[in-house]
């Protein structure tokens, strides 16, 4: 026991709690219960330990100890690779795959969250050592609030207006509103799609959104989330019954065709609305210098 024991212990505990807060198993069912969670809690604990020993190390003039953090960084990059590989491996067994865009987004979140844990532990142990435990508790609460803000990205309903449109056929061509989806030849398949299919038109609220929802990864994420939440009328060996999203080239709207087992329009709208916007799909053409200049003239 020395003067650093309690600050380090405090840092480790609040760091681990931070990881626990960020680890939620929701409708995506990832990470899986227990085993998947244990992996991430253990890594969170390690991250918290690294974060909280950094400050005492500096105080003891052990400056080289900070290089530990670089090892931590490469360790967590490894976590990201691990997540990516696992999910990509599992993706081939999904009836409606997540798609690489979604997988990359999840992997990035896992890496990023470990850094947030290091940051929380570092701030907590620093405040404890520099002032006292009360200031440290206040700083921790501040960090938790910050984490919550980082965690919740925007969702589709912030970007688009969602309208229901019954899919229809024009000859063999399947349409949602005026957006061509695919060619279905067999009359039986056509009947099934008319019976089970639901169409939605997602209209972008501004110009930036157009390229975001055009991203193939983002579109696949919508299809995957809807299929998870509403069920999907499909099996292996029925490639014609596949949920699809196509784009209207004229105005950037996208037409979503889904084949849910639960045909509840309001629920489907809510599910589409709460699909997370993938970080790597976000584009901001309005932020570019070329566009800004045009606006100023």
């Amino acid at each position, binding site marked *: 026991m020395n003067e650093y024991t309690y600050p380090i212990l405090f840092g480790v505990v609040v760091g681990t709690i931070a990881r626990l807060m960020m680890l939620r198993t929701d409708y995506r069912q990832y990470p899986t219960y227990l085993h998947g969670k244990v992996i991430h809690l253990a890594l969170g604990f390690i991250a918290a330990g690294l974060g909280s020993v950094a400050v005492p190390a500096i105080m003891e003039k052990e400056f080289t100890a900070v290089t530990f953090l670089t090892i931590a960084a490469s360790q967590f990059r490894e976590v990201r690779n691990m997540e990516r590989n696992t999910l990509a491996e599992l993706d081939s067994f999904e009836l409606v795959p997540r798609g690489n865009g979604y997988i990359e987004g999840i992997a990035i979140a896992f890496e990023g969250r470990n850094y947030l844990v290091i940051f929380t532990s570092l701030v907590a142990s620093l405040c404890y050592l520099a002032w006292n435990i009360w200031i440290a508790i206040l700083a921790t609460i501040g960090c938790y609030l910050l984490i919550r803000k980082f965690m919740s990205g925007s969702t589709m309903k912030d970007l688009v207006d969602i309208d229901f449109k019954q899919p229809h056929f024009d*000859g*063999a061509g399947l349409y949602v509103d005026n957006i061509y989806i*695919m*060619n*279905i*030849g*067999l*009359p*039986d*398949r056509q009947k099934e799609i008319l019976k089970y299919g639901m169409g939605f038109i997602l209209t972008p609220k501004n110009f930036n959104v157009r390229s975001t929802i055009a991203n193939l990864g983002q579109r696949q994420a919508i299809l995957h989330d809807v299929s998870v939440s509403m069920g999907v009328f499909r099996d292996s*060996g*029925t*490639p*014609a019954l596949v949920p699809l999203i196509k784009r209207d080239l004229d105005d950037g709207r996208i037409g979503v065709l889904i084949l849910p087992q639960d045909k509840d329009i309001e629920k489907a709208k809510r599910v589409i609305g709460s699909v997370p916007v993938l970080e790597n799909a976000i584009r901001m053409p309005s932020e570019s210098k070329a566009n800004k200049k045009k606006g100023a003239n």
Partner: protein
Amino acid sequence: MNIEKAVLSVITINKEKISGGAPIFICKTKEEMDNVAANLEAILDGISHALSDELYIIVKH
């Protein structure tokens, strides 16, 4: 073997419209053609697309 984006077979009731390439199935009636196409779709794991009322192709996507 994994084939992507290929016409796996052609089903028609109008013999004059087709020749060569993929396996061709010539049927007598529209009903027979629908039936053959439905079976082939399941067997080949492809999608039947209608190019006209007389001509279906099975495509692997």
